[in-house]
């Protein structure tokens, strides 16, 4: 009997609900049955609600089984799992799961498909093709392609990547850096993590392309410490790439040098802000720097530095391979291409959905997410992390388009979509926004540092009914001050979720406010 491939993700969400135990059980049962299997640890396809999702290769197809528990495994084997046998958990071919096949997988196409830590599998799936093409067409042509693609930063600010790269390329200096922002602090976001866990070599290639384009021979990854599994996977991938000559000096005889150093964060949200991240990479407190100078001119250790989010970088190889126009053909208006949306919180089918811009929030939540997990009505949706506004149900038809979001006082940010049902008390959520700012403020500006603490107190007073009108006005004033006089978006945008609650969910501020009232 030939060896049968069985895929079990090694990915945080899947492992968090038992994938490792399932892998052990499968190996054991296969042993008992005398079957020869190869356990492949892939990334997650992104259907997190179906994790652990395991697949068995049958002929040309991969047959998926969802929500598999280790206790299910003996029964699965009895049902002919290794031949793709019928079972309650059987979902059919993974390539026919509607949640997955209807996506526009540009950046995440290898995630789930390949064995994450196999360089051979990566090379079989176009690995390092784009880097080699970059060497052929030259650095300028790479930047031109990124410009033409209209790619904008996926870390939150949406700044055009091509312009950033051109600035770094043109900056004076013989030492330049790539700094990959893998701090992913926003609640409701996990796309960076899924990319790094499912396609770590893809990120390595992407950083090398960025380095080649701007003239940097060194890259840093700043990874948040809350991702220990990601850290293990990246560490091993970097070592493997280095041993195989895909990192280091004179890569594959091209004459191009590039290496990567992996750094861990230490539990600070503000360290995701690019200049605070640079400070942290230099071993210091993560205090936000004044801009200018821009990091592109004076960044890490004072050298020109391209700071980019993981997903931004990982979108580039296909832009190089297929051309910028193919990318800019997707999306709407000035929001070109795709974004890896993340459905989270109180949603039935949470996970990663890479779609072209222009899809509405409602389509994502209803068609992909299947509504709330609780089955109750949606009350509010927070998009763009802790600094993002809470949208009421009537705003769910807003298309995901950077500018359309700005128009309604919201932001897309890193694409996290957190759903709340009608039991949520939005006054508590507004309070949390202020509290989080107080906990995470880097302390440089008074409105952010002190204002947020005051904000918590004022909200507490409003909730308890103490001088409501005065405190309400005070809260609005506090929001104004924070917005006007904060150096970065931490203090500057914490008012967004607060104001949205004041505007759309004011009834929750009533003394016995909230849904329970």
């Amino acid at each position: 009997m030939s060896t049968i491939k069985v895929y079990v993700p090694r990915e945080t969400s899947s492992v968090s609900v038992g994938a490792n135990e399932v892998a052990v059980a499968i190996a054991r049962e296969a042993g008992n049955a005398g079957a020869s299997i190869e356990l492949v640890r892939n990334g997650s396809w992104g259907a997190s609600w179906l994790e652990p999702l395991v697949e068995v290769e049958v002929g040309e197809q991969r047959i998926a089984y969802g929500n598999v528990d280790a206790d299910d495994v003996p029964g699965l084997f009895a049902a002919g799992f290794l031949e793709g046998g019928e079972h309650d958990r059987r979902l059919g071919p993974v390539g026919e799961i509607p949640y997955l096949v209807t996506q526009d997988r540009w950046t995440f196409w290898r995630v789930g498909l390949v064995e994450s830590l196999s360089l051979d599998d990566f090379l079989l799936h176009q690995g390092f093709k784009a880097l080699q093409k970059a060497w052929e067409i030259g650095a300028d042509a790479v930047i031109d392609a990124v410009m033409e693609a209209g790619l904008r930063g996926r870390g939150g600010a949406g700044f055009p990547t091509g312009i950033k790269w051109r600035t770094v390329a043109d900056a004076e200096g013989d030492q330049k850096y790539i700094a990959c922002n893998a701090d992913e602090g926003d609640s409701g976001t996990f796309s960076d993590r899924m990319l790094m866990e499912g396609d770590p070599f893809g990120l390595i290639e992407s950083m090398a392309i960025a380095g080649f384009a701007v003239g940097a021979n060194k890259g840093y990854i700043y990874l948040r410490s809350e991702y220990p599994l990601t850290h293990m996977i990246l560490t091993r991938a970097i070592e493997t790439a280095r041993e195989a000559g895909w990192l280091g000096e004179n890569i594959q005889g091209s004459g191009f040098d590039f290496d990567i150093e992996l750094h861990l964060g230490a539990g600070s949200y503000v360290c995701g802000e690019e200049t605070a991240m640079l400070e942290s990479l230099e071993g210091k407190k993560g205090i936000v720097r004044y801009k200018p100078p821009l990091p592109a001119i004076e960044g890490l250790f004072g050298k020109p530095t391209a700071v980019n989010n993981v997903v931004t970088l990982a979108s580039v190889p296909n832009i190089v391979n297929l051309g910028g126009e193919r990318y800019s053909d997707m999306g709407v208006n000035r929001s070109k291409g795709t974004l890896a949306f993340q459905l989270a919180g109180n949603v039935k089918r949470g996970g990663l959905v890479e779609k072209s811009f222009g899809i509405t929030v409602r389509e994502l939540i209803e068609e992909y997410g299947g509504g709330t997990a609780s089955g109750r009505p949606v009350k509010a949706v927070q998009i763009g992390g802790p600094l993002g506004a809470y949208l009421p149900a009537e705003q769910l038809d807003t298309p995901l388009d950077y500018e359309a979001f700005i128009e309604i006082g919201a932001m897309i940010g890193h694409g996290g979509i957190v759903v709340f049902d009608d039991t949520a008390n939005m006054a508590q959520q507004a309070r949390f926004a202020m509290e989080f700012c107080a906990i995470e403020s880097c302390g440089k500006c008074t409105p952010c540092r002190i204002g947020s603490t005051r904000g918590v107190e004022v909200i507490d007073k409003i909730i308890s009914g103490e001088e409501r009108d005065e405190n309400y006005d005070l809260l609005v004033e506090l929001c104004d001050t924070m917005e006007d006089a904060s150096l970065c978006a931490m203090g500057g945008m914490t008012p967004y979720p607060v104001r949205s609650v004041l505007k759309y969910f004011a009834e929750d501020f009533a003394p016995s406010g909230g849904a329970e009232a």
Partner: protein
Amino acid sequence: MTPRTIDSDAVATIVGQYDARPEMLVQILQRIVQQHGWISDAVIRQLAGELNLSRADVHGVVEYYHDFRTEPPGEHIVKICQAEACQAMGSRELTEHANRVVDQDTTLEPVYCLGNCACAPAVMVDGHTLGRVSTERFDAALAAMRGADS
């Protein structure tokens, strides 16, 4: 119990792994916390000496980051996500439950997002992330954690 002192040779070894580069201070502290659980005053003094930094500088960095505990933690560390996606799935109630059931040698800490927001609420037990954590699953995880000791 987590030792009340941190072996200076072990710290020196970690510093050596980073070639005593002062810009690696955050990395060095992170490694020390991962191995020893916390940062003591003695460690701050030692690092200042070995990295050629002022004690105030090292102290400032230790103070700044949430990960750098300055007290020895308990035998086990349980972090419950307090961020929005987990709030939407009952993390506040889970935290109240946890406060009632964890024992003294377990350090309970807040964490703001474990990147497991599609399988909320999320909890990290001794460095392992768990998802869809109901109170029953939480209790089972605590039992398994204690079981691992014996």
